[in-house]
């Protein structure tokens, strides 16, 4: 089975972002970028499927600018067999991304597509579900465990009340939670080898799907800062403050 893994280039999770003073967006110049952490889990899961003889080929795909090649190189270094860059200058919205990915699925005919449950920049948590709907495939979202059994998957999902297991038939879309696995760190020889692996580049416009944004960004602002607090000496003083100053106890 071929597995398609969607990876997104995002601002690294360690970066504390700054909102531009004119309210037009977030300053992403000269900040460290890396692969969306959830997508590393997606790739790791595919690699384990390959080790277990369930997956035969792993294709990483991203939608972005030329710079997103970095992310694809990381994916190839982790062990993806090949990669596809769908070139788009304006970052499409999740709906547009899902439409593009559905076209790639038509071409590649994978048995499984793995995405992150959310991208840590926009936190939309939509793309995988949208892709599943466009393909009319079952979805297993927020996965923390996937057990493959013939042409179905027993999938454990993290929910607000605990855990839930569903069974989905392949082909299907899975979105990852961070506890699904521990992504590997690529070794130097793998990073060297990755430089020789192929990256296909296609223009987003060539797929003929409607990518026009539906949401207009009116403004971007920083959240209100919290008032600076105080350090108290001990439990007794804390209880006093909570009761008599904050009036919350």
């Amino acid at each position, binding site marked *: 089975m071929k597995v398609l893994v969607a990876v997104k280039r995002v601002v690294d*999770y360690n970066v504390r972002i700054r909102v531009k003073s004119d309210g037009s967006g977030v300053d992403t110049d000269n900040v460290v970028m890396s692969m969306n952490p959830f997508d590393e889990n997606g790739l790791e899961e595919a690699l384990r499927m390959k080790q277990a003889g369930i997956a035969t080929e792993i294709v990483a795909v991203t939608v972005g600018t030329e710079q997103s090649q970095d992310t694809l190189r990381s994916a190839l270094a982790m062990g993806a067999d090949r990669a596809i860059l769908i070139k788009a200058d304006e970052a499409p919205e*999740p709906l547009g991304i899902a439409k593009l990915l559905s076209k790639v699925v038509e071409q590649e005919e994978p048995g499984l597509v793995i995405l992150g449950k959310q991208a840590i920049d926009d936190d939309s948590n939509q793309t*995988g*579900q949208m892709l599943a709907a466009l393909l009319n495939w079952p979805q297993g979202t927020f996965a923390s465990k996937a057990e493959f059994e013939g042409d179905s998957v027993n999938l454990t999902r993290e*929910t*607000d009340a605990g855990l839930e297991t569903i069974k989905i*038939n392949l082909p299907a879309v899975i979105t990852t939670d961070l*506890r699904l696995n521990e992504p590997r760190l690529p070794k130097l020889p793998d990073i060297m080898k990755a430089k020789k692996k192929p990256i296909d580049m296609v223009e987003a416009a060539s797929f003929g799907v409607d990518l026009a944004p539906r949401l207009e960004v009116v403004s971007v602002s920083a959240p209100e800062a919290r008032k600076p607090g105080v350090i108290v000496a001990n*439990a007794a003083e804390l*209880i006093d403050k909570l009761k008599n100053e904050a009036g919350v106890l």
Partner: protein
Amino acid sequence: MSILVIAEHDNSALNANTLNTLNAAAKIGGDITLLVAGSDAQSVVDEAAAIASVSKVLSANDAALADGLAENIAWLVNGIAANYTHVLAPASNFGKNFLPRVAAMQDVMQVSDIVDVVSADTFVRPIYAGNALVTVKSSDSVKLITVRSTAFDAVEATGGSAAVEELAFGEAFEGVSFVSRDVTVSERPDLATAPIVVSGGRGVGSKEDFAIIEKLAEKMNAAVGASRAAVDAGYAPNDFQVGQTGKVVAPDIYFAIGISGAIQHQAGMRESKVIVAINKDEEAPIFQIATYGIVADLFDVVPELTEQLS
């Protein structure tokens, strides 16, 4: 404006987040219909009909709707979405799971996790783990929206008597089935709505020692939360996780104990009214947002605190 709100429930009771979502609907303004999709969920339908701000309840009763499977709920909602100007669901695991599916079927770009309604087509939502707020205007004819429940007060649960209409469900989606559920049973109040939350982090050190967090919570009738590091290490179950990828809470008091305060954790608790941090490292980022901090060993302070609270 006519607004469809999708109720979250477990076939026996309405989840409180539905009341918060209804408030967001009320802010948009217009006629509100509440959909209860479930199996033998009459008690939920009764609860729904009693809510003052609801003008109509749609009840879909089918075994295929029992377990919240996204494919089936999305199919149902997709069939009626075009009758409304807005479709709202809580930004919980339930809402996040099915609503984007409806959005794709409707060819609509969903607005996720809103924290404010500016007007009927303009909404505010957090991005970058809450480090920025983006105001977006939707041009879609039906607006599909998930609502962050901590950002909207709950509407009154009573005072109404809405008409109930049956909604037929079609055929269940093939290729997906529910297998089992492993629900965390806790004596403590619900993390999402409790007025006091006591959270422990990696600093607590072990599953056994996590009991001191639980004892403090018990003393104040508080809910228990945890950082991702504490959940990953097995000190607490996954549904206790607070943060960007866990639950978002906004209690009156949030205790962060042995938690450093990474931005991903802050994303889930920075809207709390009062934040108390207990950490032995005075440089820990949590102190930058704490209302009250104690720089000390948690194994000294927490038992003391538990003892002295009456």
